[in-house]
């Protein structure tokens, strides 16, 4: 599979942040409304202005949300007006994506004036700093996560998110349909949107193809309409890959089935089973069995290992006789 370059650093404008952030933050704009589209957030980590206001400003990282809480407001309010202006001007305002005031605190007028002049958005939330920081970090982590859309089918099989891979025409969608009939869930067909969140991969369907499945000969079918709500699933952690391959593309099949390979997606390694497909082999049964096998193995039982041990015992027994 051809890889895709992740050349662009993910970013989100302050405007999009306001639009999409969790509603319970009750965000409101206090200053700098004109520049919401221009200023961008590039890091999911926040900073507290804290010491920067006291003059130690060179640790301000660009592209971050700067939190202003009770301590910053208190600090500013006990300064004289000129000192306050000086403290705020001393900050590297160009580097700041936006200022987020917590707990519905009232900022000193100088902060709003200077921000307005420097086209720096100042936003306010009703939440206390700790809650706001948590919510903002979680939201930004998800929004700024590296993302790709790849060709494949994502299913929820038992408790696992299973990504079906393989060349087109190999029967991924037909296999998915079969698995749906057995009570498993479709998350995405043909195009799977994958986000890397921490060291985890989350897969979902693009809005356009949600709930749809394309079957050659039948065209596009809506799985929810045909099979009901229990046949579809939402965004899911990807636990396992299963690649379908034509039998003749296999040079040599490991008949003991000892090895699985790793599939690298966005730098995260996911265990992959490679299953040979040929007429007469029921692909969906194979996939379902592979998942059961994986569940069993992750609980510590490996039938191949078990066979090898039994065999060894017979060898030892024969030797002593």
């Amino acid at each position: 599979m051809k890889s895709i370059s992740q050349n662009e650093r993910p970013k989100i404008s302050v405007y999009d942040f306001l639009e999409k952030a969790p509603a319970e933050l009750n965000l409101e704009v206090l200053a700098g409304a004109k520049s919401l589209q221009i200023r961008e957030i590039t890091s999911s980590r926040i900073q507290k202005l804290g010491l920067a206001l006291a003059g130690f400003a060179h640790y301000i990282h660009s592209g971050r949300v700067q939190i202003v809480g009770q301590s910053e407001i208190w600090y500013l309010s006990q300064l004289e007006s000129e000192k306050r202006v000086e403290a705020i001007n001393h900050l590297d305002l160009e580097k700041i994506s936006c200022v987020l005031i917590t707990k519905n605190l009232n900022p000193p007028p100088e902060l709003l004036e200077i921000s307005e002049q420097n086209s720096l958005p100042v936003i306010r939330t009703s939440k206390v700093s700790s809650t706001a920081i948590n919510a903002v970090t979680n939201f930004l982590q998800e929004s700024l996560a590296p993302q790709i859309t790849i060709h494949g089918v994502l299913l929820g099989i038992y408790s696992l998110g299973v990504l079906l891979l393989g060349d087109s025409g190999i029967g991924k969608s037909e296999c998915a349909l079969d698995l749906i009939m057995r009570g498993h869930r479709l998350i995405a067909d043909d195009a799977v949107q994958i986000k890397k969140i921490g060291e985890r991969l989350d897969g979902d369907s693009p809005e356009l193809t949600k709930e749809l499945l394309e079957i050659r000969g039948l065209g596009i079918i809506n799985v929810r309409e045909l099979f009901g709500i229990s046949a579809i699933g939402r965004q899911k952690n990807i636990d396992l890959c299963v690649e379908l391959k034509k039998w003749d593309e296999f040079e040599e099949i490991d008949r003991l089935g000892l090895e699985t390979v790793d599939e690298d997606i966005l730098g995260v390694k996911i265990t992959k089973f490679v299953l040979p497909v040929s007429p007469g082999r029921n692909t969906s049964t194979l996939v379902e069995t592979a998942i059961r096998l994986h569940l069993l193995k992750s609980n510590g039982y490996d039938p191949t290992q078990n066979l090898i041990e039994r065999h060894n015992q017979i060898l030892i027994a024969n030797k002593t006789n």
Partner: protein
Amino acid sequence: MIETDVKIINPLGLHARAAAQLVRLAGKFKSKIQLIRQDNAVMADAKSILSVLTLAASKGTKLQLFIDGSDEIEAKEAIIEIFERGFGEI
């Protein structure tokens, strides 16, 4: 493995009917044919309609074309030709 760029020039972009034409054409070749849109990191298999539609490629969109297989040269020519004809719309 052949790698080249293609551009959508027809006014309606890579809409459903055009995508269906492309998928039908790509399906005639043995090679693996991929279209990649770098600006929103979407990789599509040219033989799958839902996958191609996910590219959401409007007029002016640049796509990278990757073809790998025994008939890659013929596939490349045919696919470039259909893009240049604007899917018969111009």
